């Protein structure tokens, strides 16, 4: 390492300390026009949207996503809305599985905790089930997240002792235990086949589940979109920060990470807590559109769906999680459209092969195909396209 001036030596990490007569901080980290690869500070290099095309691209996608409800039919919008909510949960799982490398099959459990916590917070105190009557939307969303995060914190210590397959089995146990508790704690959940009502999304006195100037689906879609954007930005910031780098170190080799000074216990705890928080937020919103949900929703199948979203979307990417969730959410719709293209597939449940079977088969096929041919998922496909043009007219 070399230093130009003695002042610089201590100023390496924090660029705040500068030789006298230097311009204010804002001036120092200005980008040089027309040179996308020239970074004059780490802040620029690490920036969430570090290039102009990225900034414009993301802006365009957000605008398109926000305008989509105006042109899309309500039934499709409902599916897309569910996809947005699932994306929040997928982001959470991706933080844990993708960034921190901790395999978890217990995501459904944390989603369940979030769903019940939110319902309980917003629930009617006079009703049949536990309820606290706080129907402020951000409160029960956050409440769901925090309750799940607490549950995650309880589980995390196990993860510090186990890894790989063993951790997967333990988290699988979590789903089983969770399923039992949810079913039996009838004051909270209403019990099997009965269920309880989801929280009412009432914002500024208007109930989003009632049609008004905009339909229920449109309003809910916008609510979900806002929460998803907040979650995605949050997760992206975690991923590109010190925590994110520590998690990646743990994933790549936990022993090596430990030697480098990453506190394994602490960061695995952080990974579980963060992941569970997003799962809880997802759970709090997941059934808002349907209104009622039962404990049978939080089974291994849901966990596997989340894993599928992460694998298909792209491991260790936020945008990949969103892409994966949208694809999985659209899968029933896609298989429902199939009979019109492939006549041998039927939409009748008592004939074979029917669309429900195809849907299940598609999950499996997609996971296998992606793992075999594009392990980096949908995001990997995008990276491939981007690299093709980025290196144009060369190939590398």
């Amino acid at each position, binding site marked *: 390492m070399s230093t130009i001036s003695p002042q610089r030596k201590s100023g390496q990490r924090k660029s705040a300390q500068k030789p006298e007569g230097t*311009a204010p901080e804002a001036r120092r980290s200005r980008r040089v026009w027309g*040179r996308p690869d*020239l970074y004059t*500070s780490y802040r620029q290099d690490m920036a969430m949207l570090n290039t102009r095309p990225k900034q414009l691209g993301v802006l365009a996608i957000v605008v398109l996503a926000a305008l989509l409800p105006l042109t899309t039919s309500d039934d499709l919008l409902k599916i897309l809305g569910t996809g947005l909510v699932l994306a929040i949960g997928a982001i959470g799982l991706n933080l844990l599985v993708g960034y921190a490398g901790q395999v978890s099959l217990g995501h459904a459990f944390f989603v369940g905790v979030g769903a019940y916590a939110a319902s309980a917070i917003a629930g009617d105190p006079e009703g049949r089930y536990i309820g606290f009557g706080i129907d402020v939307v951000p409160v029960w969303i956050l409440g769901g997240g925090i309750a799940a995060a607490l549950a995650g914190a309880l589980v995390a210590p196990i993860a510090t002792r186990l890894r790989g397959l063993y951790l997967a089995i333990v988290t699988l146990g979590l789903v089983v235990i969770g399923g039992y508790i949810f079913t039996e704690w009838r004051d909270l959940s209403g019990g099997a086949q009965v269920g309880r009502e989801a929280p009412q999304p009432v914002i500024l006195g208007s109930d989003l589940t009632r049609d008004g100037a905009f339909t229920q689906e449109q309003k809910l879609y916008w609510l979900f979109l806002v929460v998803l954007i907040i979650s995605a930005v949050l997760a992206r910031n975690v991923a590109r920060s010190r925590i994110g780098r520590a998690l990646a170190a743990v994933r790549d080799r936990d022993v090596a990470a430990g030697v480098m000074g990453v506190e394994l216990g602490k960061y695995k705890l952080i990974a579980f807590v963060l992941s569970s928080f997003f799962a809880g937020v997802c759970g709090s919103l997941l059934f808002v559109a349907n209104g009622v949900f039962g404990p049978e929703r939080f089974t291994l199948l849901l966990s596997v769906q989340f894993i599928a979203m992460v694998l298909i979307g792209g491991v260790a990417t936020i945008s990949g999680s969103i892409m994966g969730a949208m694809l999985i959410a659209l899968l029933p719709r896609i298989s429902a459209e199939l009979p019109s293209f492939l006549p041998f597939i039927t939409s009748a449940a008592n004939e074979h092969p029917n669309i429900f079977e195809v849907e299940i088969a598609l999950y499996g096929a997609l996971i296998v195909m992606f793992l075999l041919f594009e392990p980096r998922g949908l995001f990997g496909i995008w990276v491939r396209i981007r690299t093709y043009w980025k290196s*144009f*007219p*060369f190939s590398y």
Partner: protein
Amino acid sequence: MTALETAPAAVHVDDTIVTRVRDRAARSPHGIAMRRKDYGVWQEITWAEYWGLVVTVGHGLLALGVEPGDRVSIQSENRPEWLILDLATVAVRGTTVGLYPTNPAAEVGYLLGHSGAKVHLAEDQEQLDKALDVADQTPDLQHLIHVEPRGIVGRYDEPRLRSWTHLLELGAEHRAAHPGAVEALIEQAQPDDVMTLVYTSGTTGPPKGAMLTFANCAFAMHTVFDRNSFVDPAPGEDDLTLSYLPLCHVAERFFSTWFNAGAGVQTNFAESIDTVPANLREIQPTLFFAVPRIWEKLLATARIKLDSATRVKRAYARFWMKQADHIGAVLVENGGSHTVGTRIRYAIGWPLFFRALQSRLGLRRVRYASSGAAPIAPDVLRFFMGIGVKVHEVYGMTENTAVATANRPGRVKLGTVGEPLEGAEVRLDDQTGEVLTRHAGNFAGYWRNPEATAQAVDADGWLHTGDVGTWVDGTHLAITDRMKDIIITSGGKNVSPSEIENALKASPFVKEAVVVGDGRKYLAALIGIELDTVGEWAQRRGLGFTTYHDLSRKPEVLELVQGVVKEVNAQFSSVEQLKDFRLLPKELDHEDGELTATQKVKRSAINQIFGELIAEMYTTGGAS
């Protein structure tokens, strides 16, 4: 900028590289003076910081006992410290001596001893060891400064050694005790103060130290920045350059230090010569100077990368490269100006292809590019013209402060070094055809070598460059060769080897070519292959090889080079054709004495080292 015409008459000079930095620091303190890459990020240094460091280091030098006229030597890769110490030395009226980082210990001993340097900056342990190895040849050396602490701190028992940081502390103390001492010395500067000794590489004999004065430098800066508008607008604070050639060479000193100090151009230091392509892409300089070797390398890289692209990209690139060939050829005919046809072709090709290609090469923002310090093959220039990067060949040498002739935008003649610059007198010797120049940039003489000085500059003030030239169309100067390199065959024909050599080197597969044949029946050549490209070529056809030596012995490679030679022979008359060639068994190297520090071939050394190989070509008879 102040006009120079009024300056020389004054007793002191008020327009030097030092005063220009001082004034710029006062005018735009937060502007960027330079960047260097550290830990993957381009760290910026503002004018105010730069000037502060120059003054502090100047005080440090005073504290070390440097007096006006003392020599301070620097052996380092390009980095901000080089510029800072250079300016600080000049500020306290000392003389800077630059050493090539590749100079081996023996040459370091000669240079330090001959220049009598009092203070020597050795960048790192490697350079420090060189200087310490030859301590017996450097009686005048009183202080050693190192920049990189690795491997040095706590390991050397050397009382003269101190770190750069320590020098700064020393300077800060001295500054507190004697405020204004450096500023006072700046005011006392005289036009004939020697600001730097530039040691010429010396293909024959030991290097000679050319003395350049404030007046020389002021003339050069004035000529290039103010009088001759190469680019419009003139170089300024919005321009970026990449500094990567050795700073002790006059061309890079001019282009990095003087462009930076004189015109306020932002200097960016490449991490090393190997990272130049990557750094170019990041920096995208607006002004770019390169030696032919670098242009050849860029060309080879572009060709190879285009050829190894995917099928679709390759076909696409082939189409556009055909257009580029056409554009290049037309531009060459028109002196670098577009015709309507080429302008349309280029305008269509730019968004579809050329823009991306330029970006990948790091040349997209280049508004003025030049090549100098050695002759360049016209094919290389034509290629770059075709893809929209107009490279201008310029000519100058250490002894005339790099000011002589240049190809101007729009008036380019390929194969020439351009027209004399305004303010520079250039003529050819009536008998020998030697190029002579005369202007205020002519150096003050060789350091401690009056005989060589007398040989170089005649009584009328004409500098004898040692190059043979001819006028093309009465306006443009073409350099035939170095006078002493001209080959006279036994048949009495005068042949310029460098033309043939450059034609060979235009092939991406040829790195070195040395034409021999002085006093022989015919010409022959020693050819060194380019390891990267030939290696890639061999790999693509499944040809296994281990080392350079192994690769150069492959019959397939021999055949490949044979093809290149045949193509080149077709361009020349029969006396100038190569009748035979041999591949060099090793890469030529500075350390082994085959190249000078500027990578020029030392012919005498080659004749000696590869004498057998040469003799072989003349005993077996013309095989090709």
